[in-house]
């Protein structure tokens, strides 16, 4: 990413947020900001990026939007009001985020992630408007054509306008539920980047947005938990193999883990534990913090990890959490116990390849080679990425060879 592109993304969310508040129209805001960036692309490389790119973009976009609205008969009065407001405001050149700007950004995030919008629309709007990805970047992030993504964005913005989805920060009573939607959108973006080597940018984008949300709402522990979860997971990426190969936690070269990300993530987890308002993201982050704390795989504190899984499954009783818990329990109570736990969820997760991978590994530890090979092979069939398929096929071959040896 070059300077102009970075400034583009940083400034985009702020500029759209402010314009949307001033004009009450997200589409107008987006178009005006787009125009301002076209001007910037022309000027910045020549004259240099201004000290406050966001302020420059907001001012330029506001002028542009005023012109557009003026041409519209009904909007003339509104335009006059905003134009004089602009004269009073001067060139918004403050370096830090002032209070109204902070609220603008939150309003935009909560509007993009309103529960009345379908999930893929929430994600598309958030990446386009808040993160400032271009429509073609958003399209390639979700493996759809630019035309499909453009239609999706138009439909989402249509619903905001037609249904009058309000442009505001939810009040205290609604906030927990609404924040959950925002965090799940950010985590979805993160995981889309984690699953696919070609979309690694999405992970950085999700982390950047979550960090911004922590700055905007420092009192929300689940947001901090999500940021910690992302940092601790990012920290281990270098040990996962450069070409996207699956490298199991127990086989990772831990000297490759990013110590500074781990330190930051663990500090956030400690702050969460002290605050004692542990929700699902904080508990998942705590589990990752324990993994990261072990210098060697053998040093992993599985007892504490299982304890956190017990708390996690109490607040988030999903089959996937049950699967991860079963894997942890295998380390404290043995693979027989793990297999029993898998049986309870094998119906729900029949087509989920990690279930078969976990079963394969437990059967392998019990020396039940034939069944282990079968489980791995089934996982390989179901795996959604090429690297996972390759890895599970390799495991299946490995246990078949192990079986040969014991014959």
């Amino acid at each position, binding site marked *: 990413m070059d300077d102009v592109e970075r400034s583009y993304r940083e400034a985009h969310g702020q500029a759209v947020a402010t314009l949307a508040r001033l004009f009450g129209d997200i589409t107008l805001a987006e178009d005006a900001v787009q125009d301002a960036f076209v001007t910037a692309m022309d000027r910045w490389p020549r004259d240099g990026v201004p000290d406050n790119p966001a302020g420059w973009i907001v001012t330029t976009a506001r002028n542009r939007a005023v012109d557009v609205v003026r041409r519209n008969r009904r909007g003339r009065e509104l335009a006059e009001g905003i134009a004089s407001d602009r004269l009073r405001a001067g060139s918004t050149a403050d370096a830090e985020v002032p209070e109204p700007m902070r609220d603008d950004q939150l309003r935009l995030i909560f509007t993009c992630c*309103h529960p*009345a919008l379908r999930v893929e629309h929430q994600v598309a709007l958030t990446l386009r408007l808040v993160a400032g990805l271009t429509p073609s970047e958003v399209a390639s992030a979700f493996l759809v054509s630019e035309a499909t993504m453009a239609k999706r964005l138009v439909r989402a913005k249509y619903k905001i306008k*037609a*249904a*009058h*989805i*309000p442009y*505001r920060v*939810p009040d205290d009573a609604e906030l927990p539920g609404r924040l959950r939607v925002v965090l799940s959108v950010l985590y979805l973006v993160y995981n889309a980047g984690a699953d696919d080597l070609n979309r690694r940018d999405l992970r950085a984008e999700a982390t950047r947005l979550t960090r911004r949300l922590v700055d905007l709402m420092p009192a929300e522990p689940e947001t901090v938990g999500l940021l910690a979860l992302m940092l601790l997971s990012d920290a281990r990426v270098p040990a996962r193999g450069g070409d996207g190969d699956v490298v199991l936690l127990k086989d990772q070269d831990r000297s490759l883990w990013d110590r500074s990300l781990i330190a930051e993530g663990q500090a956030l987890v400690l702050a969460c534990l002290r605050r004692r308002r542990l929700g699902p993201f904080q508990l998942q982050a705590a589990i990752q913090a324990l993994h990261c704390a072990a210098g060697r795989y053998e040093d992993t504190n599985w007892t504490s990890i299982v304890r956190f899984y017990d708390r996690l499954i109490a607040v988030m009783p999903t089959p996937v959490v049950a699967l991860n818990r079963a894997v942890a329990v295998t380390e404290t109570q043995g693979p027989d116990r793990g297999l029993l736990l898998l049986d309870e969820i094998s119906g729900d997760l029949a087509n989920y390849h990690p279930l078969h991978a976990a079963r394969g590994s437990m059967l392998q530890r019990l020396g039940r080679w034939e069944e282990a090979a079968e489980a791995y092979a089934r996982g390989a069939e179901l795996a959604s990425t090429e690297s996972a398929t390759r890895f599970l096929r390799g495991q299946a071959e490995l246990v078949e060879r192990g079986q040969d040896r014991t014959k």
Partner: protein
Amino acid sequence: MNQYLLSVYEAEGNSAPSTPEEMQAFMGRVIALEEEMDRAGAFVFGGALHGPDAATVVRGGTGLEKVTTDGPFVETKEHIGGFYIINAEDLDAALAWAEKVVEAINHDIEVRPFRATGRVRADH
């Protein structure tokens, strides 16, 4: 102020109040809700419909012959059992009313914004 249609979806053979006590409690909740809507200036119109067995469909088109048949228009397990038209500042306000309707009448609600209301006039 915007207007929204809150459609009440009833599932086939779903639990209508069956005892007089249940019926009385149900009526009490609905009356209280509608009074609350009235006080807030939200109530525009509302009504409960007869079931799909009572529906009749008229088909045809502009300039075409009209054909009347037994309804409903679409055979589904769920049908609209009634509706409210409400005034609300924005979608969140409409959703807050929808939650209260669901609570009072124990059925799911679809909330849709009106694109236009009232009579179509020549200057439109």
